[in-house]
């Protein structure tokens, strides 16, 4: 089974989605994006609650974009579960199930046998999600879309439920599109990730591929590469090592940069900046410590680097205690954690 969107464009008020193409094979693809990126609109296009102005939606090669929602057989799990409050759990489960459907297997898989006689208004958030998923699965959908199904739950329940969800969803032999704004959730639940920013799919790939190797500075920034600096490629070494000049310093990067590219945007994750105190290390930058902001696990340190402007570093508590606002110090950059984006790409900046 394969779900494909091709050349999709739609406008809703000031917001426009697309042009956008996405192919989802069997397995779980998480669509990751901030609020307002168009994630829900994307699912509504697939499920039939929104009509594209152009482009096609196909399921196993058959166009479904002209069909009403009830004829698509695309199951949807809504953000707040959308259980019918006037029906019991069992009645919710049977609501869309064809006559004679055996719901027992699904009920067992999702561990909701004890809930069948309950009034849906008495269920906990986690129970509501399980019932909502079961209600969709008993209709035997050809594809499944989930709209931030865990977003309104408390963190501990969310963490537990996303593992359970992953187990259930990965056993399905249909394409699953799972929308979330939570990067950890996207990584835990998904086999593949599509990054949706400002109405456009900016990158798709395996979880490792997308998180470790963001395709553009925009994607990188969204995925937590907070420091984006202007740099110049100075030297290419053997293997995948490049010398890059940023500000008044040169740093080594463990990444091959295509020949002919000189100007680049350099991405540094906050955790890739290490406080080393002195200049006796490689890959160092001289910085002024502007502010130390303690957090739950470690601290955020705001730095001003010579000729580079402000940098954000993340460090553990012990290191943070040794760093004082106002002091001048030296930081080292992890060469394996630097991203080089050749400038001149569509969203290069």
């Amino acid at each position, binding site marked *: 089974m394969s779900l494909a969107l091709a050349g999709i464009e739609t406008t809703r008020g000031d917001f426009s989605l697309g042009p956008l193409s996405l192919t989802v094979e069997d397995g779980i693809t998480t669509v990751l994006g901030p609020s307002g990126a168009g994630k829900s609109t994307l699912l509504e296009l697939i*499920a*039939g609650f929104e009509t594209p102005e152009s482009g096609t939606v196909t399921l196993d090669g058959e166009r479904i974009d002209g069909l009403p929602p*009830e004829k698509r057989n695309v199951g949807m799990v*809504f953000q707040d579960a959308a259980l019918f409050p006037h029906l019991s759990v069992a009645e919710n489960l049977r*609501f*869309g199930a064809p006559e004679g459907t055996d719901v027992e297997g699904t009920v067992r898989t999702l561990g909701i046998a004890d809930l069948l006689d309950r009034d849906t*208004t008495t269920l906990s958030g986690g129970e509501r999600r399980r019932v909502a998923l079961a209600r*969709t699965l008993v*209709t035997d959908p050809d594809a499944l879309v989930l709209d931030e199904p865990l977003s309104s739950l408390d963190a501990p329940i969310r963490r537990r439920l996303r593992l359970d969800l992953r187990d259930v969803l990965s056993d399905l032999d249909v394409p699953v599109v799972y929308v979330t704004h939570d990067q950890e959730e996207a990584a835990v639940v998904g086999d593949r990730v599509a990054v949706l920013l400002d109405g456009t799919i900016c990158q798709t790939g395996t979880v490792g591929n997308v998180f470790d190797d963001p395709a553009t500075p925009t994607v990188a920034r969204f995925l937590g590469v907070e420091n984006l600096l202007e740099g110049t490629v100075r030297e290419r070494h053997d293997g995948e090592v490049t010398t890059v000049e940023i500000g008044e310093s040169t740093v080594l990067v463990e990444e091959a940069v295509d020949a002919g590219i000189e100007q680049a945007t350099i991405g540094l994750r906050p955790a890739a900046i290490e406080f080393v105190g002195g200049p006796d290390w490689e890959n160092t930058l001289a910085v002024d410590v502007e502010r130390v902001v303690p957090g739950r696990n470690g601290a955020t340190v705001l730095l001003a680097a010579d000729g580079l402007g402000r940098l954000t570093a993340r460090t553990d508590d012990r290191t943070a205690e040794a760093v004082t606002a106002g002091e001048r110090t030296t930081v080292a950059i992890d060469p394996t954690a630097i991203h080089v984006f050749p400038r001149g790409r569509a969203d290069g900046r």
Partner: protein
Amino acid sequence: MTGPGPWLLNRVRRDGPVASVADRVPVSITERGDRTLSTPGATGQRTVIALLGAVLVAYLLGPFVAFLLEHGLPTPGAFADPAVRSAIVASLVTAPVATLLATVFGVPLAYVLARYSFRGKRLLEALVVLPLVTPPVVGGVVLVSAFGRLTPIGKAAAALGVPLTQGYAGVVLAQTFVAAPFLVVTARSGFASIDADLERAARNLGKGPLATFREVSLPLTRGSIVAGIVLTFARALGEFGATMLLGHPPETMPTRIWVAFVAHGTDATVPLVVALLGAGLAVVLVLRLLAGPLEFSP
């Protein structure tokens, strides 16, 4: 929450010959007025607020008490008067028909107003509530202009043997015109309070638009619709101004009260006033019963 709250009790007004416009404007049924103020201190301020409220309660109840003290309850014999009987029959035949018409056409209209977006929607919404904010007698005048004996519709209906004025048909037209907005406004508010995802979930689970309306939208709005029906019935039963212009005669209970009052004073109105008071109390009771069990938590 889709059921009516206790505030609805305050909205039940069987306006007689003269009722203020404000009495006939319902507010959103999602409002609730049953929270108690239990903050400590400020007793003096609470007393002032309570006293102000008590003044109005005294004013609202006083006339009823005065009426009953002066006239007492009517004897069964008082209802033997053929004019009184015929007025009761006229009201009990026409008001349910008007309520039925308002429901059959008003519930779909309420759904359209709650769920669909289209050009001219605001204008339509304003037109729907116009009968609520204009005096019923004005409604009567415009109805005569549309359905009077000399109008094309009036002539055609009379030729078919169903005169639209001075008969039950005229009374029903007048009652429906004045009372139907109550149903539309109440039901609309009920439909609007349903989470749209519930209807979308039904569509996603294979139900067409009509099945979704029947199996999800309607049951979830039941409380609001029943409240709207009760209010519409009460309003139709008490309709006077438009009925006088379009339907009279026959006499309904309110028009009979007016005729009796003009001819013989308050003594002659007692049986029908008490009957309508009883009907009003029944409506209040029904709304009170609806306020509880028909509410759904979101």
